């Protein structure tokens, strides 16, 4: 009876458009927000913040960006890592050129850079699709990482070739750089991820979300209901790369603290793609589930055996991790293309009719 919908009637279309037509969903979300905003910060230590909570949030955001492009609009991209890089380098240039600029504004502008670059590399999508488009985005990936290496102006001519995050204050609190505390950084990332998630839910459930899904499901029919394919696809690249770029800036500024070009190479693109696939393409929730799994897996693999007194080497953990993730990807692609989010949907439906399944 946990998920009883009886008695919850909708009397207007407006009520039908409430984010949580079923009241229990709202309770569940409130519970999760309570965990995220109160319980975790009160109980987590430095390790949990930096090895689990912060990366889960940032990877979720990157996967959310990719999911808008691939899961909603149906345009496969293998260039996510490079677009994250554009966001990170743009943010680095902004905060070093304009040290007085509010950091949130710098982040928002960094997103515009990655969105524009993403849209430019999305132009081939107007002529090619599927596998061929994926290859074109891969070209973007190679080109951009090469540019991050060669264009010394991007990293302010540091001899190391890497960008170092300076201390950045906001309203007297250090949010990024060597002096920032984990808890502040966690709250900062959490707030941004919540805000963008809220906006992304709204975009995907209205007119624009439907346009994207139409393009994904059958582009010819989409055109014949009056959808301008060019606008729809380019907007998907823009919005997606905007979110991905912000995720990239957070990735460096609020988590890694420093970065060189290689960080944004193909493995990062694939990690984000795997999160989106395992979590569920065409879902918002799935990005979080996928990120939790992918980030937590190596931590679990290295801590659990040790807790049982089994010695496990770091390289062993890495190999195990790759094997498990690979197996998961194959399983999900074959068995449940809608990913973990689909499992949640099934459980939720079961709970709604439980304990009377008829």
């Amino acid at each position, binding site marked *: 009876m946990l998920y009883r919908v009886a008695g919850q009637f909708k009397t207007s279309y*407006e009520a039908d*458009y409430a984010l949580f037509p079923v009241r229990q969903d709202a309770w569940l979300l409130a519970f999760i927000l309570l965990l995220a905003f109160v319980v975790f910060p009160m109980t987590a230590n430095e390790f949990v913040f930096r090895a689990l909570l912060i990366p889960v949030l940032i990877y979720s955001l990157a996967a959310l960006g990719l999911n808008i492009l691939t899961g909603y609009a149906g345009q496969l991209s293998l260039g996510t890592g490079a677009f994250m890089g554009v966001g990170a380098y743009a943010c680095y240039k902004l905060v070093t050129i304009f040290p007085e600029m509010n950091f949130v504004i710098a982040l928002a502008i960094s997103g515009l850079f990655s969105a524009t670059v993403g849209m430019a590399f999305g132009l081939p999508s107007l002529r090619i699709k599927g596998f061929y488009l994926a290859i074109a985005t891969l070209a973007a990936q190679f080109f951009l990482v090469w540019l991050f290496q060669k264009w010394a102006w991007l990293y302010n001519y540091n001899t190391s070739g890497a960008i170092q995050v300076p201390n950045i204050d906001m309203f007297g609190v250090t949010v990024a750089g060597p002096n920032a505390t984990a808890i502040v950084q966690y709250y900062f990332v959490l707030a941004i991820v919540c805000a963008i998630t809220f906006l992304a839910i709204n975009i995907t459930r209205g*007119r624009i979300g*439907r346009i994207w*899904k139409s393009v994904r499901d059958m582009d010819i029919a989409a055109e014949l*209901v009056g959808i*301008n*394919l060019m606008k729809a696809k380019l907007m998907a690249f823009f919005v997606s790369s905007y979110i991905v770029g912000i995720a990239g800036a957070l990735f460096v500024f609020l988590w890694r603290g420093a970065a060189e070009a290689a960080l944004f190479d193909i493995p990062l693109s694939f990690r984000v793609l795997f999160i989106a696939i395992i979590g569920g393409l065409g879902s918002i929730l799935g990005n979080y589930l996928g990120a939790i799994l992918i980030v937590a897996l190596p931590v679990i693999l290295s801590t659990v055996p040790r807790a049982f007194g089994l010695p496990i080497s770091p390289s062993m953990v890495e190999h195990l991790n790759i094997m498990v993730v690979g197996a998961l990807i194959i399983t999900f692609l074959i068995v449940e293309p809608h990913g973990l989010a689909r499992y949640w949907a099934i459980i939720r439906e079961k709970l709604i009719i439980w304990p009377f399944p008829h």
Partner: protein
Amino acid sequence: MNAHPAIGPALGQPDASDDGIAKGEVLLKVDNVSLSFGGVKAITDISFDVRKGEIRAIIGPNGAGKTSMLNVVNGFYTPQQGTITFRGVERRAMKPHHAVRQGIARTFQNVALFKGMTTLENIMAGRSVHMHRNVFWQMLWHGPALKEEIEHREKVEEIIDFLEIEHIRRTPVGKLPYGLQKRVELGRALAMEPSLLLLDEPMAGMNLEEKEDMSRFIIDVNQQRGTTIALIEHDMGVVMDLSDRVVVLDYGKKIADGPPDEVKNDQAVIDAYLGVAH
């Protein structure tokens, strides 16, 4: 015929009334159109017109060029020769989404729905051309975007009632049986509020009861909303019942054009349908 909700004025001002063409006047004119794919001549020098308010049938054996003709009309193909005049404006090359904006909607011979979306979402997608709130309002959702969404939802719900598909509102259309998919596709086309509705074999693969329902929907759309309809159909009985005038194509050429009774008794048509050698 069962009683069912009216779809006329209830759907707001149908666009059909404000396309500037009076009932009975020419809405669409096709002049000397020829279309070929490489060596294959799909359409050869065809001319006909569709008058405002009528149901116009296009018939002919398989491969006669009927679907190609619709594809030319809605801008999917550009003919090598000839002109299309819609609402008094002549055009040559155009994108399908422009044709939609001018008031041409269609359904497909092989259902072309958005399979991963629900019935409601599919029909709402048909309203895309009438919705304008930009991405910033969409992000906020509450306010103008929600208001627009609800306005259009109301129109879509009227179509859902009219087509008697309330029970499948939330079902992903990929899971629906073929007959219902065809009905949802009609709903999506109606949501566009076209002044000319093109239907490519709307009853293909249906059983008798489904065909009767579909015929009833087509007549009601035509009579209550004043929507002009051009339809392709194989079932001669259906064509004779529904249509005001019939064009007959065979091997890409027009072989007859006129009221159903006349066309039915035309020797060339009888030969074409009996498969007499040319």
